Structure formats: C-alpha cells, structure tokens
C-alpha cells in the first residue's frame, strides 16, 4: 500500500485540452490527493514546462515528471530543478517514485480516487522533500527534542541555512538546539554519524571553521543567543554562542560598556570567543578570550560542564584558543570593560609605492599608544598605485586626541577619502548588515592564509609588496596587535601568540598558487591565527599551537573528546603520540 496517492495525466493529446489538464490537477489538490504524475509521450506537451505550469496553478500538490529535463546538460537540469524549488517549494520530482498514481482523463476519475482514498494523515514531509535526503543520515532517528526545528535539504528553510558567509554548502541535516540538553541530544545523534562531517555554527562567519559542508551534519546554535547582565557591579555578562557581536555591543552600550570582538559586528560569538578575538579594542583591552571568566560546555559524550578558574580550569584554558576541539559552548560569561565614546576612523589612501606605505604603517603602528588600534587592508597592487584602507578605533572621547593619533597613519599614503567620527563601539559594530531569515548565500570555498608577524621588517614590506603585485591575492589585511594583548602570559590561554606586532590574513582564488606565494614568505612568520586559515595541510596545526601548548591540548583532548567527535577545525587528533 502506497503512502501517497494521486492521478496520472498523459501528456500526449493534452495539448487539445490544456484547461482540462490544469483543472484535473487543481481538483486532485482540492480533494486532498498527494501527487499529479505526468506521463511523457512523444509529440505531446513538454513534461518540465507542464510541471512548472501546474506548479504555478496549484499550491501544495506534488508533481512527478519522470524523465523530464533529460535533453539538457546536467548543470542546466539541476538549475531548472533548483529554480522551481525556489518558486514553488520542493514538490516537483523528475525521478520515478513509489506513488500510487491512477490514470485520470476526466473529473469523475479524480473524484472516484478521492472517494477511495478517503481522508488520511499526511506525513510532515512529502515524498518530494524526502527525495532530497542525503545518504547515511538516520532522518527517522532525529531526537524528538530537535525534530520540529531540524532542517532537511527539501525544507523551506534550507536555502537560508545551507551556506555561510564565505562558503557554499549542502549539508544533509541542520540541527538547531535551543538548550544545553538539546545540544547533548544533537551530539548523541552526531556520535551515531561519525562517518559524516560535523560542523558547528554560531554566526556562520567561520573561515577555518567549516560551519557548512556537503552531505554532513550541522549543529546550528543560532537560537542560543541570550545576552544577560549577571552582575552589574563586576560587569559580568552572560552571552549565548548564537548571538552576534553587533547584538552584544548594543546591549552593553546601554551600560556604558563594551567587549572587544573582531572588526565586524555580524560575526557570531561562539566561534570567535573560542579562538581569540583580535579586534579594534584589543590593544587597549586585550583579546576577547582575555575577558572570559567562565564557559559552559557540552562535551562530546553529552555531559554539561562549567569551566572557570575554580572549576575545570584546564578546560577553560583550552577553550580560550582551541575551543572547537573540546565541546559545544552553550554560554559564555565575560567581564567586560567600561568604554565611552571612541574615535572611529575609516581612511582610504592611494599609495604610489606599497612597500614604502607598509614600512611607514609598521613604524607608526609600532609606536602608537594603546588606545589606538588601526588595521590595514589592501588588494591587488597596480604598477605605481595601490589602494589602502586604514580603519580603526582610538579609545578616547577627545577629538583632538583622536586626530593626533590618526595623523601619522593618514600620512602613510595619499589620503583620498576619510570618515572620522566620535561614536560608540556599538555603532561601529552596527555597521554590519543584518542577516535575515534568508541567511547567507555564499558559494564556493574561501582560500585564506593567516600568520602572525613578530615584526613588520623592511624585508617583509618588500616581500609583501611583491605578493600584492603578483595578482594572487585579492584581500590583504594586517591586524594591529601589541598593547594589552601582551599583558596576558602566553601560558595562560591556548592562544599563545601574545607578542607579534601584527596578524596577517590574505585571500586568493587559486589555492595552489596562493600557497606557493605564501610559503615563500614563511620565514617572516611565527605561527598562525587559526580563525583565518583554510590550508588543510596537517603541519598547519604546528603553526597554530607551539609544541608545549599542543602537547597539553592533546592530553586534554584525550580527556574531553577521546573519540575525536570535534574535528572540523584544526583537529587535534587524540590518537597521535606527541
């Protein structure tokens, strides 16, 4: 006995009575049938065109068109199917399905079938949706606590959840827990699917963190976005992993507080707060993780634990720089800073000689006071002309001080555009666009390399200029470090790179070409910031963590995730003997 019933319409001869075809499909839908199957016949109506037409004239009923689109290239056929899914929802299927379809040529045929089939419970996901399920996932075994909000490839919300800010993806299932207990349920499900990639997503901005994949699982923490002041006296704030830094900044602003994050408010809390957080307030207030006082984590085996200086201090140490290997953080407790009005500067310079500009920027940044953090961005260099963006914060409300601090930066090239305002950190974060329910729509895979630069030497400026002229890099960014970042000893957190002057990120489009160009610069570098690195070569792990840190992390990995469930982002394999 089939689960789903419908009518079969023959496309030969239908051209004589096109209205009848549309009317029969409408009648089947009104009568509660599940599907209209179109039977192709030479010289009759084109199956795909007819399916798209009927989808436009109906609202819900599924349409089966076996063999449609066969005359097109696979890419064109895929595009057509995807497009109709967007326009009409997932209800048109071009393969044979186990439908019970009874031939119908007249309204009476449809009515008779409706009578026979009677009123039934319809499955939540019709066959057309189930047809898009991926192999190796026990969809029927999704924990009951998560089933109502889980998103499968054919679901209406899938397009808004499949891809991330920088990466296109096609996961087989997105689980969306709302509580630590539901996170534990999601992890139990993930443990039964060790054969599939597992991505953890907070804001979906991960570069190294693969928060989408092809055919695997995603645990999306977007719903866990609480922001709550716990102790106004001590400025302790509890934040969920799914909040964005823009949202955090807006809440803290009401108290005259701020917590430095990166340089973009759209980034989610979870990924950044478990990696580092080199941002626009770092030189005055330290990294984001330097403010982390406690974190609640669900471990790979589903156990909820709290880590602070008093409880599980080892785990707190590991989460602060290598968190992706140890668990799913479900809440962070930060001690935030009092931050008033700041100077927010965005300068555009044209440089006739990018090597010279880099040298000057290095010298100015090196001697800047702690209240000043200015990042440098650039792109492909043209002969005799590079465009450089300098943007940053002067944590001082006095306009004269702001101007004084920025003036040496502004003279590292020919200033062509400037915007300097006194504002709040929350307003700086608020410049990030909101991401609505439609989510991110990136495609492809980012190619990004990262390094710490102990010192911006003349030799580095020369080699970096060469890299920018090579055309292999479309994005080049120096994050200004030093200051308060160095106040925390390297051994205090798994993020150990406390002393570099800069963090450098480049992005290109050709992975091999970029790697070749980048590897030639390796002697300038000491380690890498794992958030911005996409090179999958295993030796990158040794760049992310110095040997003593890695040894300690591996010991902890054996304790907290011996089965290596968390492995999508700079995996520390517990099996490897140091």
């Amino acid at each position, binding site marked *: 006995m089939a689960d789903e019933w419908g009518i079969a319409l023959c496309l030969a001869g239908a051209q004589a009575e096109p209205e009848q075809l549309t009317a029969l499909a409408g009648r089947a839908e009104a009568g509660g049938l599940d599907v209209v199957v179109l039977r192709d016949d030479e010289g009759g109506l*084109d199956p795909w065109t007819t399916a798209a037409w009927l989808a436009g004239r109906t609202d819900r009923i599924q349409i089966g068109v076996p063999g449609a689109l066969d005359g097109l*290239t696979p890419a064109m056929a895929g595009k057509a199917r995807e497009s109709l899914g967007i326009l009409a929802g997932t209800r048109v299927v071009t393969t044979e399905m186990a439908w019970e379809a009874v031939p119908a040529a007249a309204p009476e045929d449809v009515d008779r079938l409706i009578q026979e089939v009677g009123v039934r419970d319809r499955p939540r996901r019709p066959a057309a949706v189930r047809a898009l399920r991926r192999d190796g996932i026990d969809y029927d075994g999704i924990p009951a606590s998560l089933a109502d909000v889980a998103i499968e490839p054919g679901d209406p919300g899938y397009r808004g959840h499949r891809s991330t800010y920088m990466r296109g993806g096609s996961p087989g299932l997105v689980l969306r827990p709302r509580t630590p207990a539901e996170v534990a349920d999601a992890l139990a499900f993930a443990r039964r699917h060790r054969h599939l990639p597992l991505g953890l997503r907070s804001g979906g901005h991960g570069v190294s963190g693969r928060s989408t994949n092809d055919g695997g699982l995603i645990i999306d923490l977007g719903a866990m976005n609480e922001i709550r002041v716990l102790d106004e006296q001590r400025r302790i704030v509890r934040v969920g992993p799914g909040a964005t830094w823009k949202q955090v900044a807006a809440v803290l602003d009401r108290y005259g507080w701020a917590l430095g994050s990166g340089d973009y408010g759209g980034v989610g809390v979870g990924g950044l707060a478990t990696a580092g957080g080199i941002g626009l307030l770092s030189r005055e207030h330290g990294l984001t993780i330097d403010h982390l006082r406690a974190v609640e984590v669900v471990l790979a085996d589903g156990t909820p634990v709290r880590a602070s200086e008093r409880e599980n201090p080892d785990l707190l140490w590991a989460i602060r720089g290598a968190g992706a290997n140890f668990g799913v953080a479900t809440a962070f407790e930060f001690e935030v800073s009092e931050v008033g009005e700041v100077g927010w500067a965005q300068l555009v310079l044209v440089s006739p000689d990018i090597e010279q500009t880099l040298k000057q920027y290095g010298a100015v940044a090196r001697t800047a006071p702690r209240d000043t953090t200015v990042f440098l961005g650039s792109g492909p260099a043209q002969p005799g002309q590079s465009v450089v963006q300098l943007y940053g914060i002067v944590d001082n409300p006095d306009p004269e001080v702001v101007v004084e601090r920025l003036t040496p930066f502004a003279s590292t090239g020919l200033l062509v555009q400037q915007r300097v305002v006194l504002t709040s950190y929350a307003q700086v974060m608020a410049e990030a666009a909101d991401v609505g329910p439609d989510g991110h729509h990136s495609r492809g895979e980012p190619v990004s390399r990262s390094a710490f630069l102990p010192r911006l030497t003349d030799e580095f400026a020369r080699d970096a200029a060469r890299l920018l002229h090579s055309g292999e890099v479309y994005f080049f960014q120096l994050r200004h470090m030093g200051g308060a970042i160095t106040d925390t000893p390297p051994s205090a957190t798994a993020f150990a790179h406390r002393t570099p002057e800069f963090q450098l990120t480049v992005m290109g489009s050709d992975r091999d070409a970029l790697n070749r160009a980048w590897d030639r610069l390796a002697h300038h570098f000491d380690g890498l910031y794992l958030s911005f690195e996409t090179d999958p070569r295993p030796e990158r792990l040794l760049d992310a963590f110095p040997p003593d840190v890695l040894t300690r992390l591996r010991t902890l990995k054996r304790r907290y995730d011996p089965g290596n469930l968390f492995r999508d982002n700079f995996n520390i394999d517990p099996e490897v003997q140091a």
Partner: protein
Amino acid sequence: MTDYGHDLLFGTFVTPGEKALDLTLTADRAGLDLVTFQDHPYQPAFLDTWTLLSYAAARTERVRLSGNVLNLPLRPPAVLARAAASLDILSGGRLELGLGAGAFGDSIAAMGGRHLTPAQGVDALAEGIGIIRDLWNVDARGRVDHQGTYYTVSGAKRGPRPAHDISIWVGAYKPRMLALTGALGDGWLPTMDYLPHGPASLPDANARIDEAAAGAGRSPAAVRRLMNFMQVGFSPTGRGLLDGPPAQWTDQLADLALTHGISAFIIGGDDHAVAERFAAEVAPAVRDLVKRERG
C-alpha cells in the same frame, strides 16, 4: 522616415532573480503587453529562465512573455521547440520566443554547453531556428530529420502545434546577426544601451535587416523592431533618453516608432513604480500620438 506599421507593445525587461515573479505580477496588473526575462543560467543568483517563464505564465492571466533573449547554446532547439509550443498552448497563446546566439562562451561551457566562436554561434542559431520552425510545423508530412553542423535531430515527431504563431525575436548587433535576423527572424530585439551609437545606430541596422529580408524574399515589415532600454527613470526635468517626465518619454518613444520603426518598448530597472507609470502614463500617450501621426 521608417515605420513598419506594427501595433505598439510596451513591456519590461526583468532580472530573473527572486523578485522576478512579483515584477511580473505588477506588469500583468498594470496592463503592460509584455514581460521578458534575460537568460544567463551561469549566474548563480539567477533562476532558470525557462522554468521562470513557465511558472510566471501560470501565475498571470493576460500578459505575454518571452525570454530576452534565450541562450540557444544551453537550450537545444528540439527541446526548446517543444517547450515553447507547450507553454504557448498552456498559456493560451501568450508566449513569444526571444533568441540569442549566446555570449560568454566560458560560462556556457561551465554549464556543459558548447563553446562556440561568435561566427559559429550565428550559424548554429540559424540552424536552430530552422529546427524549431520545422518541429512546430505539424502540417508537414513525416518526422523531422536534421543532420547539421551543430545539431542533429533524428526522426523526431513534430508538435505539439503552438496555440498561435509564435514570433522568433533575435538579439542582434553585428552585421552577420542582423542579416540572420532579416532573413529568418520575426523580430529584432537589441538593447539601446549596447548599440554603439545609441539611436544613431538604428538607420544602418534597420537597413541591414531590410536588405537581408528582401534578399530572402520577405517584406521588411515581416521583422518587427523591438528595443530594450536599461537606464530609465522618471524625473521632473528632462535629462536624456527615457530619463525625464512622462511627456518627454512619450515624445521620445513616438519618435523612435515613427522615425526608426521601433514598435516594442521594453524597459529594465526592475522597478515596480516605474513599470506602473510606464503603463499608465506613457504607453497610452505614445499609442495616441503614433496613431495620430500615422493618420
């Protein structure tokens, strides 16, 4: 003065993105004659134009639809002929067929299509139009066999028969494409913004089409002249072609109709309000003015 005497059509040129359906419904409601979609399947953010045309036709009652123009290298003519006839039947004769030779060869190849040189593209289009017309011609005897340089059709059954005489409108700019349009097309569908000298390019292009039509034993009036306009807007003071008050649009379009024989005006911009004003304030006025002048 060149005027081929066709009735006037007013329409929109719509980006086949997620707002395309709403823009189509607006045009249908506003009383425009035509909604057309560009066709660049290799653009990740775009919908498949044929699927969109079929779905949009189902969601409208009155407006005529066309690709502007469909990418023939990615749409095999035998498949397209059957699909077009089917949609014409289902929609009650509301489909026209804008066709192009397909630019952006690398992108076409990325979608599995053939990478043709521009010259090959012209020849393939000529071959394709022949196949499409042959398959529509259900009154002819026998099946369709075609062993061409670019396409092979083996014993295909003809049909279905379109509900009306579907026009084939060709996107053409260069001399060989203009000649093909004159010889084989029912219409010429370029974009004003891409003509090398704007309206000043029209006399030469029209002459080439007329000449090719005559060479094929056809009347120049057999080829309707349509035109897309990408940069348009209503503004209180006149600033340029289709950038000014409605009265200025009216004068400019009437002049294009009477002087250069343009009889279909298709505006881009994906703007609901502009489309509604175009339908309400410009189209009737142009019709009146041209009718008066034609006498």
